[in-house]
Protein backbone atom coordinates (compact mmCIF):
# COMPACT_ATOMS: atom_id res chain seq x y z
CA UNK A 1 0.00 0.00 0.00
CA UNK A 2 1.48 3.30 -1.01
CA UNK A 3 0.20 6.80 -0.50
CA UNK A 4 0.93 10.46 -0.40
CA UNK A 5 1.58 12.90 2.41
CA UNK A 6 0.54 16.50 1.85
CA UNK A 7 2.27 19.35 3.66
CA UNK A 8 -0.55 21.74 4.49
CA UNK A 9 1.68 24.11 6.43
CA UNK A 10 5.46 23.85 6.39
CA UNK A 11 7.71 25.00 9.21
CA UNK A 12 10.78 26.99 8.10
CA UNK A 13 13.26 24.10 7.91
CA UNK A 14 11.63 20.96 6.52
CA UNK A 15 13.70 18.65 4.34
CA UNK A 16 13.84 14.97 3.47
CA UNK A 17 16.86 13.20 4.93
CA UNK A 18 18.30 9.71 4.96
CA UNK A 19 21.82 8.51 5.72
CA UNK A 20 23.20 10.76 2.98
CA UNK A 21 25.40 10.04 -0.03
CA UNK A 22 28.83 8.63 0.81
CA UNK A 23 31.36 8.21 -1.98
CA UNK A 24 31.16 11.63 -3.63
CA UNK A 25 33.78 13.40 -1.55
CA UNK A 26 36.18 13.14 -4.49
CA UNK A 27 33.69 15.19 -6.53
CA UNK A 28 33.26 17.86 -3.87
CA UNK A 29 29.97 16.60 -2.41
CA UNK A 30 29.91 15.95 1.34
CA UNK A 31 27.88 13.04 2.63
CA UNK A 32 25.12 15.15 4.15
CA UNK A 33 22.13 13.23 5.45
CA UNK A 34 20.25 13.61 8.72
CA UNK A 35 21.70 16.12 11.17
CA UNK A 36 20.96 13.56 13.88
CA UNK A 37 21.52 10.08 12.38
CA UNK A 38 20.64 8.45 15.70
CA UNK A 39 17.12 9.89 15.40
CA UNK A 40 16.83 8.20 11.98
CA UNK A 41 17.90 4.89 13.50
CA UNK A 42 15.32 5.30 16.28
CA UNK A 43 12.57 5.80 13.69
CA UNK A 44 13.74 2.69 11.85
CA UNK A 45 13.58 0.70 15.09
CA UNK A 46 10.12 2.01 16.03
CA UNK A 47 8.67 1.11 12.63
CA UNK A 48 10.82 -2.03 12.13
CA UNK A 49 11.87 -1.01 8.66
CA UNK A 50 14.86 -0.58 6.36
CA UNK A 51 17.68 1.64 7.66
CA UNK A 52 17.82 3.55 4.38
CA UNK A 53 14.24 4.89 4.68
CA UNK A 54 14.03 8.66 4.27
CA UNK A 55 12.32 10.75 6.96
CA UNK A 56 11.18 14.35 7.21
CA UNK A 57 13.69 16.43 9.17
CA UNK A 58 12.12 19.40 10.93
CA UNK A 59 14.40 22.19 12.17
CA UNK A 60 12.93 24.00 15.15
CA UNK A 61 9.31 23.22 14.33
CA UNK A 62 7.20 20.90 12.21
CA UNK A 63 4.04 21.82 10.34
CA UNK A 64 0.64 20.45 9.46
CA UNK A 65 0.26 17.29 7.40
CA UNK A 66 -2.40 14.96 5.99
CA UNK A 67 -2.20 11.55 4.35
CA UNK A 68 -4.41 10.09 1.62
CA UNK A 69 -4.11 6.53 3.01
CA UNK A 70 -3.85 4.93 6.42
CA UNK A 71 -0.17 5.15 7.34
CA UNK A 72 2.09 4.44 10.29
CA UNK A 73 4.35 7.13 11.68
CA UNK A 74 7.10 7.48 14.24
CA UNK A 75 8.27 10.72 15.86
CA UNK A 76 11.89 11.01 17.03
CA UNK A 77 14.65 13.56 17.67
CA UNK A 78 13.89 16.93 19.26
CA UNK A 79 10.67 16.64 21.25
CA UNK A 80 7.96 18.69 19.53
CA UNK A 81 4.36 19.19 20.52
CA UNK A 82 2.38 16.86 18.24
CA UNK A 83 -1.33 16.19 17.83
CA UNK A 84 -3.47 13.95 15.62
CA UNK A 85 -6.81 15.65 14.93
CA UNK A 86 -6.21 17.60 18.12
CA UNK A 87 -5.36 14.62 20.36
CA UNK A 88 -1.84 14.77 21.83
CA UNK A 89 0.74 12.27 20.53
CA UNK A 90 3.63 10.89 22.55
CA UNK A 91 7.04 11.71 21.08
CA UNK A 92 9.62 8.92 20.56
CA UNK A 93 6.79 6.59 19.67
CA UNK A 94 4.96 5.08 16.71
CA UNK A 95 1.31 5.79 15.97
CA UNK A 96 -1.33 5.03 13.35
CA UNK A 97 -2.08 7.93 10.99
CA UNK A 98 -5.59 7.48 9.62
CA UNK A 99 -6.39 8.74 6.13
CA UNK A 100 -7.50 12.36 6.27
CA UNK A 101 -6.46 12.96 9.91
CA UNK A 102 -4.52 16.18 10.48
CA UNK A 103 -1.09 15.63 11.99
CA UNK A 104 0.12 18.83 13.56
CA UNK A 105 3.70 19.22 14.82
CA UNK A 106 4.62 22.40 16.66
CA UNK A 107 7.79 23.96 18.02
CA UNK A 108 10.63 21.99 19.60
CA UNK A 109 10.39 21.84 23.38
CA UNK A 110 13.88 20.40 23.77
CA UNK A 111 16.48 20.09 21.04
CA UNK A 112 16.60 21.34 17.45
CA UNK A 113 15.85 18.64 14.85
CA UNK A 114 12.68 16.54 15.06
CA UNK A 115 11.91 13.70 12.63
CA UNK A 116 8.67 12.43 11.14
CA UNK A 117 9.05 8.89 9.84
CA UNK A 118 6.40 7.05 7.82
CA UNK A 119 6.06 3.31 7.38
CA UNK A 120 7.60 2.53 3.97
CA UNK A 121 9.66 5.71 4.05
CA UNK A 122 9.22 8.76 1.84
CA UNK A 123 9.72 7.49 -1.69
CA UNK A 124 11.02 10.42 -3.72
CA UNK A 125 13.47 9.64 -6.55
CA UNK A 126 17.06 9.17 -5.43
CA UNK A 127 19.64 11.61 -6.74
CA UNK A 128 23.24 10.44 -6.60
CA UNK A 129 22.11 7.47 -4.54
CA UNK A 130 20.17 9.32 -1.83
CA UNK A 131 16.91 11.12 -1.14
CA UNK A 132 18.57 13.62 1.19
CA UNK A 133 18.26 17.29 0.39
CA UNK A 134 21.78 18.77 0.29
CA UNK A 135 21.06 22.47 0.25
CA UNK A 136 24.69 23.55 -0.12
CA UNK A 137 25.12 21.33 -3.18
CA UNK A 138 21.86 22.45 -4.75
CA UNK A 139 20.38 18.94 -4.43
CA UNK A 140 16.77 19.23 -3.32
CA UNK A 141 15.26 22.15 -1.45
CA UNK A 142 13.46 22.98 1.75
CA UNK A 143 9.84 21.83 1.54
CA UNK A 144 7.00 24.30 1.30
CA UNK A 145 3.26 24.61 1.89
CA UNK A 146 1.19 22.48 -0.46
CA UNK A 147 3.93 20.05 -1.51
CA UNK A 148 3.16 16.35 -1.63
CA UNK A 149 5.52 13.49 -0.82
CA UNK A 150 5.08 9.93 -2.09
CA UNK A 151 5.27 7.16 0.52
CA UNK A 152 6.75 3.73 -0.22
CA UNK A 153 5.21 0.33 0.43
CA UNK A 154 4.94 -0.43 4.12
CA UNK A 155 5.63 -4.06 5.05
CA UNK A 156 4.86 -3.50 8.75
CA UNK A 157 1.68 -3.14 10.79
CA UNK A 158 2.70 -2.49 14.38
CA UNK A 159 2.17 0.89 16.03
CA UNK A 160 1.95 1.99 19.64
CA UNK A 161 5.64 1.39 20.33
CA UNK A 162 7.87 3.65 22.37
CA UNK A 163 11.62 4.08 22.77
CA UNK A 164 13.52 5.97 25.45
CA UNK A 165 16.00 8.12 23.53
CA UNK A 166 19.65 8.48 24.36
CA UNK A 167 19.81 11.96 25.99
CA UNK A 168 21.45 14.43 23.58
CA UNK A 169 19.15 17.44 23.44
CA UNK A 170 20.48 19.74 26.11
CA UNK A 171 24.21 20.13 25.54
CA UNK A 172 26.80 18.38 27.68
CA UNK A 173 30.30 17.00 27.22
CA UNK A 174 31.73 16.41 23.75
CA UNK A 175 34.64 14.04 23.20
CA UNK A 176 37.24 15.40 20.80
CA UNK A 177 40.22 13.90 18.97
CA UNK A 178 43.22 16.03 18.00
CA UNK A 179 43.09 17.23 14.39
CA UNK A 180 45.61 18.25 11.72
CA UNK A 181 46.34 21.65 13.32
CA UNK A 182 45.73 20.97 17.03
CA UNK A 183 49.50 21.35 17.63
CA UNK A 184 49.42 24.89 16.18
CA UNK A 185 47.44 26.06 19.22
CA UNK A 186 49.54 26.92 22.28
CA UNK A 187 49.12 24.63 25.29
CA UNK A 188 47.42 27.31 27.39
CA UNK A 189 44.87 27.95 24.60
CA UNK A 190 44.08 24.24 24.39
CA UNK A 191 43.69 24.13 28.16
CA UNK A 192 41.33 27.10 28.11
CA UNK A 193 39.42 25.48 25.22
CA UNK A 194 38.74 22.44 27.39
CA UNK A 195 37.84 24.53 30.43
CA UNK A 196 35.37 26.82 28.63
CA UNK A 197 31.63 26.37 28.52
CA UNK A 198 30.34 27.12 25.01
CA UNK A 199 26.84 27.96 23.89
CA UNK A 200 25.54 27.08 20.47
CA UNK A 201 24.78 30.22 18.48
CA UNK A 202 21.20 30.70 17.34
CA UNK A 203 22.34 30.90 13.69
CA UNK A 204 23.38 27.23 13.43
CA UNK A 205 22.30 25.21 10.41
CA UNK A 206 22.97 21.85 8.79
CA UNK A 207 26.45 22.96 7.71
CA UNK A 208 27.73 23.88 11.13
CA UNK A 209 27.21 25.51 14.49
CA UNK A 210 29.07 28.49 15.88
CA UNK A 211 30.22 28.06 19.47
CA UNK A 212 29.97 31.23 21.55
CA UNK A 213 31.80 31.77 24.82
CA UNK A 214 32.72 34.57 27.16
CA UNK A 215 36.35 35.70 27.15
CA UNK A 216 38.98 35.85 24.44
CA UNK A 217 39.04 33.74 21.27
CA UNK A 218 41.16 30.67 20.61
CA UNK A 219 44.01 31.76 18.40
CA UNK A 220 46.94 29.88 16.91
CA UNK A 221 50.52 31.09 17.21
CA UNK A 222 51.16 33.93 14.78
CA UNK A 223 49.59 34.55 11.38
CA UNK A 224 48.88 31.11 10.08
CA UNK A 225 48.30 30.17 6.50
CA UNK A 226 46.94 26.66 6.17
CA UNK A 227 46.74 24.96 2.80
CA UNK A 228 43.13 24.01 2.03
CA UNK A 229 42.67 20.46 3.18
CA UNK A 230 39.87 17.91 3.45
CA UNK A 231 37.17 18.56 6.05
CA UNK A 232 35.12 15.97 7.90
CA UNK A 233 31.91 16.45 9.89
CA UNK A 234 32.83 17.09 13.51
CA UNK A 235 35.88 19.20 12.65
CA UNK A 236 36.13 22.28 14.86
CA UNK A 237 37.35 25.13 12.63
CA UNK A 238 38.61 28.27 14.28
CA UNK A 239 38.01 31.41 12.22
CA UNK A 240 40.24 34.49 12.14
CA UNK A 241 38.70 36.04 15.27
CA UNK A 242 39.22 32.86 17.29
CA UNK A 243 35.62 31.56 17.26
CA UNK A 244 35.17 27.79 16.96
CA UNK A 245 32.62 26.35 14.52
CA UNK A 246 31.68 22.68 14.71
CA UNK A 247 31.02 21.38 11.21
CA UNK A 248 27.97 19.17 10.70
CA UNK A 249 26.58 16.77 8.09
CA UNK A 250 26.35 19.26 5.24
CA UNK A 251 29.79 20.87 5.59
CA UNK A 252 31.98 21.76 2.62
CA UNK A 253 34.56 19.16 1.59
CA UNK A 254 37.69 21.30 1.97
CA UNK A 255 38.66 24.28 4.07
CA UNK A 256 41.58 26.46 5.00
CA UNK A 257 40.88 27.44 8.60
CA UNK A 258 42.94 25.75 11.32
CA UNK A 259 41.14 22.98 13.16
CA UNK A 260 41.56 22.65 16.89
CA UNK A 261 40.06 19.15 17.04
CA UNK A 262 37.31 16.84 15.78
CA UNK A 263 34.19 15.84 17.71
CA UNK A 264 33.60 12.07 17.75
CA UNK A 265 30.84 10.97 15.33
CA UNK A 266 28.83 9.49 18.22
CA UNK A 267 28.80 12.87 20.04
CA UNK A 268 27.90 14.94 16.97
CA UNK A 269 24.12 14.60 17.41
CA UNK A 270 24.62 16.47 20.71
CA UNK A 271 25.99 19.44 18.77
CA UNK A 272 23.26 19.33 16.12
CA UNK A 273 20.51 18.96 18.71
CA UNK A 274 21.75 21.42 21.35
CA UNK A 275 19.25 24.22 21.44
CA UNK A 276 20.64 27.75 21.27
CA UNK A 277 22.07 28.60 24.66
CA UNK A 278 22.61 25.01 25.79
CA UNK A 279 26.04 24.57 27.43
CA UNK A 280 28.64 22.45 25.62
CA UNK A 281 32.14 21.49 26.74
CA UNK A 282 34.93 19.88 24.74
CA UNK A 283 37.46 17.45 26.11
CA UNK A 284 40.22 15.60 24.31
CA UNK A 285 40.26 11.81 24.37
CA UNK A 286 42.76 9.26 23.10
CA UNK A 287 42.18 7.14 20.00
CA UNK A 288 41.64 4.11 22.28
CA UNK A 289 38.93 5.94 24.20
CA UNK A 290 37.36 7.04 20.90
CA UNK A 291 37.26 3.47 19.61
CA UNK A 292 35.65 2.32 22.85
CA UNK A 293 33.03 5.10 22.66
CA UNK A 294 32.23 4.46 18.99
CA UNK A 295 32.00 0.69 19.57
CA UNK A 296 29.53 1.28 22.38
CA UNK A 297 27.51 3.73 20.25
CA UNK A 298 27.33 1.31 17.34
CA UNK A 299 26.24 -1.53 19.62
CA UNK A 300 23.55 0.75 21.03
CA UNK A 301 22.19 1.44 17.53
CA UNK A 302 22.18 -2.30 16.79
CA UNK A 303 20.29 -2.88 20.02
CA UNK A 304 17.64 -0.19 19.46
CA UNK A 305 15.02 -2.60 18.18
CA UNK A 306 15.25 -4.71 21.33
CA UNK A 307 14.60 -1.59 23.43
CA UNK A 308 11.31 -0.77 21.75
CA UNK A 309 8.43 -1.32 24.19
CA UNK A 310 4.67 -1.20 23.93
CA UNK A 311 3.27 2.24 24.58
CA UNK A 312 1.16 1.74 27.67
CA UNK A 313 -1.82 3.98 27.55
CA UNK A 314 -2.67 4.42 31.20
CA UNK A 315 0.08 5.51 33.57
CA UNK A 316 -1.76 3.73 36.44
CA UNK A 317 -0.99 0.51 34.60
CA UNK A 318 2.70 1.27 34.63
CA UNK A 319 4.07 0.06 37.99
CA UNK A 320 7.59 0.99 36.95
CA UNK A 321 6.72 4.44 35.64
CA UNK A 322 9.55 6.02 37.60
CA UNK A 323 12.10 3.87 35.81
CA UNK A 324 11.26 5.55 32.49
CA UNK A 325 13.48 8.49 31.71
CA UNK A 326 10.86 10.80 30.30
CA UNK A 327 13.44 13.52 29.66
CA UNK A 328 13.12 16.01 32.47
CA UNK A 329 11.07 19.02 31.51
CA UNK A 330 9.92 17.55 28.21
CA UNK A 331 6.61 16.22 29.39
CA UNK A 332 3.89 18.63 30.38
CA UNK A 333 2.10 15.95 32.37
CA UNK A 334 -1.22 16.03 30.55
CA UNK A 335 -0.18 14.01 27.53
CA UNK A 336 -1.75 10.74 26.61
CA UNK A 337 1.00 8.42 27.81
Amino acid sequence: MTGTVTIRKAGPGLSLQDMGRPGYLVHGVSRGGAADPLALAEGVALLSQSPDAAALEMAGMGGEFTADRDLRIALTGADMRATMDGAPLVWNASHPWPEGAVLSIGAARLGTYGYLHVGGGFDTPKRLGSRSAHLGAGLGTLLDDGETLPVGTDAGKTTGQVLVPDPRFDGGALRVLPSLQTDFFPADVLERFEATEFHRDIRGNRMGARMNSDGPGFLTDGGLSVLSEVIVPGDIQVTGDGTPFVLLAECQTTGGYPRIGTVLPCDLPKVAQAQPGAGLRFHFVTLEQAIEAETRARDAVKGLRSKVQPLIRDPRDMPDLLSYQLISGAIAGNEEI
Partner: protein
Amino acid sequence: MAQVIDTPPAGDWPRIRTVGFDGMLVSFGETLNEPANRAALAFRAAVERAGWNGVEESATSLVSCFLRFDPLYLGHDTLRTDLETLLAERNWYDADLPQGRRLWRIPTIWGTDLAPQLEEAAHQAGLSVKDAIQSLSSEPVRVQTIGFAPGQPYLGELPSCWDIPRQQDLSARIPEGALAVAIRQFVLFSVTTPTGWRHVGQTAIRLFRPESETPFVLRPGDEVIFPPVSREEFENIRSSGPDGGASFEVIR
Protein backbone atom coordinates in the same frame (compact mmCIF):
# COMPACT_ATOMS: atom_id res chain seq x y z
CA MET B 1 52.21 20.62 -23.12
CA ALA B 2 55.40 21.37 -21.24
CA GLN B 3 55.46 20.00 -17.72
CA VAL B 4 57.23 22.01 -15.07
CA ILE B 5 59.19 19.59 -12.93
CA ASP B 6 59.94 21.03 -9.53
CA THR B 7 62.08 19.29 -6.96
CA PRO B 8 60.06 16.97 -4.74
CA PRO B 9 59.70 18.26 -1.18
CA ALA B 10 62.45 17.09 1.13
CA GLY B 11 62.32 16.06 4.78
CA ASP B 12 59.52 14.21 6.45
CA TRP B 13 57.14 13.97 3.49
CA PRO B 14 55.03 12.07 2.67
CA ARG B 15 53.28 12.01 6.05
CA ILE B 16 50.38 9.89 7.28
CA ARG B 17 48.01 11.51 9.78
CA THR B 18 44.59 10.72 11.20
CA VAL B 19 41.67 13.01 10.39
CA GLY B 20 39.02 12.77 13.09
CA PHE B 21 37.94 9.29 14.06
CA ASP B 22 37.53 7.60 10.70
CA GLY B 23 39.84 9.46 8.33
CA MET B 24 43.47 8.99 7.32
CA LEU B 25 45.41 11.54 5.27
CA VAL B 26 48.54 10.89 3.23
CA SER B 27 50.14 14.27 2.48
CA PHE B 28 52.92 14.80 -0.03
CA GLY B 29 53.91 18.33 0.96
CA GLU B 30 53.15 21.37 3.02
CA THR B 31 52.60 23.77 0.14
CA LEU B 32 51.03 23.35 -3.26
CA ASN B 33 53.53 22.15 -5.83
CA GLU B 34 53.23 20.21 -9.04
CA PRO B 35 54.99 16.94 -8.04
CA ALA B 36 53.07 16.73 -4.76
CA ASN B 37 49.77 17.27 -6.60
CA ARG B 38 50.70 14.54 -9.09
CA ALA B 39 51.77 12.21 -6.26
CA ALA B 40 48.43 12.67 -4.49
CA LEU B 41 46.46 11.86 -7.67
CA ALA B 42 48.57 8.79 -8.47
CA PHE B 43 48.53 7.53 -4.89
CA ARG B 44 44.75 7.78 -4.70
CA ALA B 45 44.45 5.79 -7.93
CA ALA B 46 46.64 3.10 -6.32
CA VAL B 47 44.49 3.10 -3.16
CA GLU B 48 41.38 2.60 -5.30
CA ARG B 49 43.06 -0.25 -7.17
CA ALA B 50 44.09 -1.88 -3.88
CA GLY B 51 40.41 -2.01 -2.83
CA TRP B 52 41.17 -2.63 0.85
CA ASN B 53 38.26 -3.98 2.88
CA GLY B 54 37.14 -1.36 5.37
CA VAL B 55 38.11 1.63 3.23
CA GLU B 56 34.83 3.34 2.41
CA GLU B 57 35.94 6.12 0.10
CA SER B 58 38.97 8.08 -0.98
CA ALA B 59 39.52 11.55 -2.35
CA THR B 60 42.31 13.95 -3.16
CA SER B 61 42.88 17.47 -2.00
CA LEU B 62 45.67 19.67 -3.43
CA VAL B 63 48.65 17.64 -2.16
CA SER B 64 47.02 14.84 -0.15
CA CYS B 65 45.07 11.64 -0.51
CA PHE B 66 42.25 11.16 2.02
CA LEU B 67 40.74 7.83 3.05
CA ARG B 68 37.56 7.38 5.03
CA PHE B 69 37.43 3.96 6.66
CA ASP B 70 35.68 1.97 9.36
CA PRO B 71 38.11 1.83 12.30
CA LEU B 72 35.95 -0.78 14.06
CA TYR B 73 36.58 -3.12 11.12
CA LEU B 74 40.00 -2.00 9.85
CA GLY B 75 42.22 -0.80 12.69
CA HIS B 76 44.13 2.48 12.48
CA ASP B 77 47.47 0.65 12.86
CA THR B 78 46.68 -1.88 10.13
CA LEU B 79 45.65 0.81 7.67
CA ARG B 80 48.72 2.89 8.50
CA THR B 81 50.99 -0.11 7.85
CA ASP B 82 49.23 -0.83 4.54
CA LEU B 83 49.66 2.81 3.52
CA GLU B 84 53.35 2.81 4.47
CA THR B 85 53.88 -0.34 2.38
CA LEU B 86 52.13 1.22 -0.60
CA LEU B 87 54.10 4.47 -0.20
CA ALA B 88 57.38 2.52 -0.24
CA GLU B 89 56.52 0.87 -3.56
CA ARG B 90 57.76 3.76 -5.68
CA ASN B 91 58.63 7.42 -5.89
CA TRP B 92 55.13 8.89 -6.12
CA TYR B 93 56.44 12.38 -6.96
CA ASP B 94 57.44 11.28 -10.46
CA ALA B 95 54.23 9.33 -11.14
CA ASP B 96 52.39 9.92 -14.38
CA LEU B 97 49.28 12.06 -14.44
CA PRO B 98 45.96 10.16 -14.63
CA GLN B 99 45.04 8.43 -17.91
CA GLY B 100 42.34 9.87 -20.16
CA ARG B 101 43.02 13.48 -19.26
CA ARG B 102 41.29 16.04 -21.44
CA LEU B 103 42.07 19.55 -22.64
CA TRP B 104 38.96 21.70 -22.31
CA ARG B 105 38.22 25.01 -24.01
CA ILE B 106 35.66 26.98 -22.02
CA PRO B 107 34.64 30.30 -23.66
CA THR B 108 34.96 33.15 -21.20
CA ILE B 109 33.98 36.75 -21.06
CA TRP B 110 36.76 38.61 -19.26
CA GLY B 111 35.85 41.63 -17.16
CA THR B 112 32.78 43.79 -17.96
CA ASP B 113 29.84 43.98 -15.57
CA LEU B 114 29.67 40.17 -15.73
CA ALA B 115 33.07 39.81 -14.01
CA PRO B 116 33.59 43.09 -12.21
CA GLN B 117 36.89 42.46 -10.41
CA LEU B 118 39.21 41.97 -13.41
CA GLU B 119 40.59 45.49 -13.19
CA GLU B 120 41.23 45.25 -9.47
CA ALA B 121 42.91 41.83 -9.82
CA ALA B 122 45.05 43.02 -12.75
CA HIS B 123 46.20 45.95 -10.63
CA GLN B 124 47.14 43.57 -7.80
CA ALA B 125 49.15 41.50 -10.28
CA GLY B 126 50.85 44.64 -11.65
CA LEU B 127 49.41 44.19 -15.15
CA SER B 128 47.24 46.23 -17.50
CA VAL B 129 43.78 44.75 -18.11
CA LYS B 130 44.81 43.74 -21.62
CA ASP B 131 47.96 41.98 -20.39
CA ALA B 132 45.99 40.37 -17.58
CA ILE B 133 43.54 38.81 -20.05
CA GLN B 134 46.44 37.69 -22.21
CA SER B 135 48.18 36.16 -19.20
CA LEU B 136 45.08 34.38 -17.90
CA SER B 137 43.62 33.15 -21.18
CA SER B 138 46.52 31.97 -23.31
CA GLU B 139 47.96 28.99 -21.40
CA PRO B 140 46.14 25.89 -20.15
CA VAL B 141 45.82 25.40 -16.41
CA ARG B 142 45.36 22.03 -14.73
CA VAL B 143 42.53 20.82 -12.45
CA GLN B 144 44.56 20.30 -9.27
CA THR B 145 41.63 19.15 -7.19
CA ILE B 146 37.85 19.18 -7.03
CA GLY B 147 36.39 20.40 -3.79
CA PHE B 148 34.45 22.75 -1.58
CA ALA B 149 31.34 22.46 -3.78
CA PRO B 150 30.14 19.74 -6.20
CA GLY B 151 32.41 19.34 -9.23
CA GLN B 152 34.17 22.61 -8.49
CA PRO B 153 37.82 22.74 -9.64
CA TYR B 154 40.87 24.51 -8.31
CA LEU B 155 43.08 25.17 -11.33
CA GLY B 156 46.70 26.20 -11.64
CA GLU B 157 49.37 27.05 -11.52
CA LEU B 158 49.16 30.63 -12.79
CA PRO B 159 52.27 32.78 -13.46
CA SER B 160 53.90 34.11 -10.29
CA CYS B 161 52.46 37.63 -10.71
CA TRP B 162 49.08 36.09 -9.80
CA ASP B 163 50.20 35.23 -6.29
CA ILE B 164 47.64 37.73 -5.01
CA PRO B 165 45.81 37.29 -1.68
CA ARG B 166 42.13 36.55 -1.27
CA GLN B 167 40.03 39.57 -0.32
CA GLN B 168 39.68 40.26 3.38
CA ASP B 169 35.95 40.76 3.03
CA LEU B 170 33.86 38.16 1.30
CA SER B 171 31.90 38.97 -1.85
CA ALA B 172 28.34 38.16 -0.83
CA ARG B 173 27.49 36.34 -4.05
CA ILE B 174 29.53 35.01 -6.94
CA PRO B 175 27.43 33.30 -9.64
CA GLU B 176 27.69 29.77 -11.01
CA GLY B 177 30.18 29.70 -13.89
CA ALA B 178 32.27 32.51 -12.42
CA LEU B 179 36.03 32.32 -12.82
CA ALA B 180 37.87 33.82 -9.87
CA VAL B 181 41.53 34.24 -9.05
CA ALA B 182 43.84 34.24 -6.01
CA ILE B 183 47.15 32.65 -4.86
CA ARG B 184 48.19 31.56 -8.39
CA GLN B 185 44.95 29.59 -8.81
CA PHE B 186 41.56 29.84 -10.43
CA VAL B 187 38.33 28.58 -8.96
CA LEU B 188 35.60 27.94 -11.54
CA PHE B 189 32.43 28.08 -9.44
CA SER B 190 29.89 25.26 -9.73
CA VAL B 191 27.38 26.93 -7.39
CA THR B 192 26.40 30.48 -6.47
CA THR B 193 28.12 31.24 -3.19
CA PRO B 194 29.92 33.88 -1.12
CA THR B 195 33.68 33.96 -1.76
CA GLY B 196 36.92 35.76 -1.02
CA TRP B 197 38.25 35.13 -4.54
CA ARG B 198 38.22 37.92 -7.14
CA HIS B 199 35.76 37.54 -9.99
CA VAL B 200 37.70 38.09 -13.24
CA GLY B 201 35.82 36.07 -15.86
CA GLN B 202 32.40 34.58 -16.49
CA THR B 203 31.68 31.31 -18.28
CA ALA B 204 28.35 29.63 -19.06
CA ILE B 205 29.35 26.07 -18.20
CA ARG B 206 27.39 24.04 -15.63
CA LEU B 207 29.95 21.88 -13.86
CA PHE B 208 27.47 19.96 -11.71
CA ARG B 209 24.54 18.24 -13.45
CA PRO B 210 22.86 15.98 -10.90
CA GLU B 211 20.30 14.69 -13.42
CA SER B 212 22.90 13.69 -16.00
CA GLU B 213 24.71 10.38 -16.63
CA THR B 214 27.92 12.27 -15.94
CA PRO B 215 27.00 14.63 -13.10
CA PHE B 216 30.54 15.95 -12.72
CA VAL B 217 32.15 17.46 -15.83
CA LEU B 218 35.78 18.03 -14.85
CA ARG B 219 38.24 15.54 -13.36
CA PRO B 220 41.52 16.13 -11.56
CA GLY B 221 44.36 16.20 -14.09
CA ASP B 222 42.20 17.72 -16.87
CA GLU B 223 43.60 20.89 -18.43
CA VAL B 224 41.50 23.93 -19.21
CA ILE B 225 42.01 27.01 -21.35
CA PHE B 226 39.65 29.99 -21.15
CA PRO B 227 39.56 31.72 -24.57
CA PRO B 228 38.02 35.23 -24.61
CA VAL B 229 34.69 35.75 -26.38
CA SER B 230 32.65 38.87 -27.14
CA ARG B 231 29.53 39.77 -25.22
CA GLU B 232 27.39 38.80 -28.19
CA GLU B 233 29.04 35.38 -28.55
CA PHE B 234 28.73 34.88 -24.81
CA GLU B 235 24.99 35.60 -24.81
CA ASN B 236 24.52 33.07 -27.67
CA ILE B 237 26.55 30.48 -25.81
CA ARG B 238 24.66 31.09 -22.60
CA SER B 239 21.33 30.32 -24.22
CA SER B 240 22.64 27.18 -25.95
CA GLY B 241 22.67 24.74 -23.00
CA PRO B 242 24.67 23.55 -20.00
CA ASP B 243 27.97 23.10 -21.88
CA GLY B 244 28.40 26.85 -22.24
CA GLY B 245 30.14 26.33 -25.58
CA ALA B 246 32.83 24.17 -23.99
CA SER B 247 34.62 21.50 -26.01
CA PHE B 248 37.39 19.05 -25.20
CA GLU B 249 39.95 16.76 -26.76
CA VAL B 250 41.71 13.84 -25.09
CA ILE B 251 45.35 14.56 -24.23
CA ARG B 252 47.70 11.95 -25.69
